[in-house]
């Protein structure tokens, strides 16, 4: 018999050094042998914003569904604050909040009614619930809209209501599945401010999925890039960018040239250009110094009668990190997945 320290049964003893979310070789296979996840592992530290970045269909939502107990993994395991998401579902549910990809607001109810029912589902009631509803309405600028039927709220307001509902029971971990997809730029900036505040001021652990590179870059302390059900690279946005050598050069050509032609034209610059990628009319390469490499590159293209329309030099971005690790440009991958 082991002697255990007396602890309140609801609270899991969480050590500060322990990650709050732990995912170990998670596999999800859907009927028809569709492998949505092929062994994903990562962990999220307490009070940080963690972003899962990847194109549509990469498996981000599947991970969120498993972590929020909606779906079961085919293999592997995952836990929230040490509680297994399959075996201790009810415990996990009380510790997490979810803001799903699609708004889950009940359109026929008012903002306040939506929040109140959500609280009741978590067993809240009375003055405690009323107070919590009022403070969340206040916080998300919905106080004036509290008696409005959700159907009449703007997309941005409905999204804020979604986040407020995810927070009603004061979860330890908040899952945000594509929180800004479909929002206009102003509402998106607004939402970014809110998300940043959640981790900074409330000490919440936030797991964010997104297919916007800037979103991950802007919000997350830690980014995992996921592609075809696998994490291809993981780290801090700064660290990932620093791994790339030098600047990115992108030249847009007037017409799509034969690839062999370009390769031949650039042969003399072999020691200057790294990671040359040709993608339709776009030619990308990585160089130690953009300012000195660009003229040489343009001259080489000119000599081969390949005409350039535009040329840009940029410091490394997450876009480049994605390209480097998947061999595809991000926008392209996202588009292909979307129309698949």
């Amino acid at each position, binding site marked *: 018999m082991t002697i255990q320290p007396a602890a309140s049964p609801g609270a899991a003893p969480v050590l500060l050094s322990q990650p709050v979310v732990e995912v170990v070789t998670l596999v999800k296979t859907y009927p028809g042998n569709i492998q949505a996840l092929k062994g994903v592992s990562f962990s999220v530290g307490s009070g940080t914003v963690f972003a899962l970045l990847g194109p549509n269909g990469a498996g981000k939502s599947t991970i969120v*569904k498993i972590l*929020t*107990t*909606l*779906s*079961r993994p085919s293999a592997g395991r995952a836990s929230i604050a040490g509680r297994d998401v399959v075996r201790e579902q*009810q415990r996990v*549910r*009380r510790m*997490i909040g*979810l803001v*799903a*990809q*699609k*708004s*889950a*607001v*009940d*359109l*026929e*109810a008012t903002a306040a*009614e939506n929040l109140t*029912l*959500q609280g*009741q*589902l*978590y*067993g809240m*009631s009375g003055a405690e619930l009323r107070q919590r509803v009022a403070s969340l309405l206040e916080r998300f600028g919905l106080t004036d809209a509290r008696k409005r*039927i959700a159907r009449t709220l703007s997309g941005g307001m409905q999204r804020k209501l979604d986040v407020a*509902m995810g927070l009603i029971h004061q979860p330890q971990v908040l899952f945000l599945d594509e929180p800004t997809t479909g929002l206009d730029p102003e509402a998106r900036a607004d939402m970014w401010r809110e998300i940043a505040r959640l981790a900074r001021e409330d000490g919440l652990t936030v797991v964010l999925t997104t297919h916007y590179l800037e979103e991950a870059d802007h919000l997350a302390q830690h980014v995992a890039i996921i592609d075809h059900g696998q994490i291809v690279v993981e780290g801090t946005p700064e660290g990932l960018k620093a791994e790339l050598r030098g600047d990115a050069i992108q030249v847009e050509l007037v017409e799509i040239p034969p690839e062999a032609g370009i390769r031949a034209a650039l042969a003399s610059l072999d020691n200057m250009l790294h990671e040359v990628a040709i993608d339709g009319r776009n030619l990308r390469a990585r160089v130690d110094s953009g300012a000195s490499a660009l003229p040489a590159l343009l001259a080489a293209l000119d000599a081969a009668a390949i005409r350039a329309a535009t040329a840009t030099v940029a410091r490394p971005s997450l876009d480049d990190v994605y390209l480097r690790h998947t061999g595809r440009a991000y926008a392209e991958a996202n588009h292909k997945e979307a129309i698949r």
Partner: protein
Amino acid sequence: MTTALASSAHITTRYLRAFLRQPYYIAGTLVQPVIWLLLFGQLFKRVVEIPGFTAGSYIAFLTPGIVVMSAMLSTGWSGTSYVIDMERGVMNRFLVSPVRRGALIGGELVYQASMVLLQSLIILGLGFLAGARFNGGIASIIILLVGTMLLGTAFASLSNALALILRKQESVIAANVTLVLPLTFLSSTFLPVSLMPPWMQHFARFNPVNWAVEVGRQTLSGSIDWSLVGSHLAGLLALTLVCAWLSARAFRAYQRSV
């Protein structure tokens, strides 16, 4: 258990509140019954003269049948609100919370049963205005309402189960339409069973719709046939439980496919 009941009540409140915001919705569900009641009430007025027809007034005979039929017509739509919740992501939001699945199912069924009650009372009132008199008294009316609510709950559960499996409004509505009319015509809603061809009589004996109608017909006679009421209500209760169990199974199947 108490939290499950409380959650269930909160879910019921959600639906009731949406209904109270659009109370004219019930008018929509009453159009059909009124047409049936008035049209068939007039058309078949003289069938009471057929030998073997025991009831004195056709409208009094018809009214309980229309009450039962209307309950099916309206609860058959129950699944469509599940479909909307699934499409909206409301369903998944509920499933991520610690609320019991039974409370989600039960809360909605209580709402459906209360809608059936309200609708039935209105139709009974309309039948009364059209000349139907209920000799069985208050007890027989309560029996009619209980039987109708049980059948309505069973139908709502079936509709919910279909919604969870098919996830399309059209399919749920089509299934409803396909079931209601045949089951109604194979019951004593419009004519007594004794006037049906033998094969229909045989079917009617096992038709839950007919059980509910026969239970409801107790409103006609001065004395209630308690053994018939008891066995039919027990049958309806069993059916309701089976259908509720089916919808719970469908819930699990839905969650596996998420």
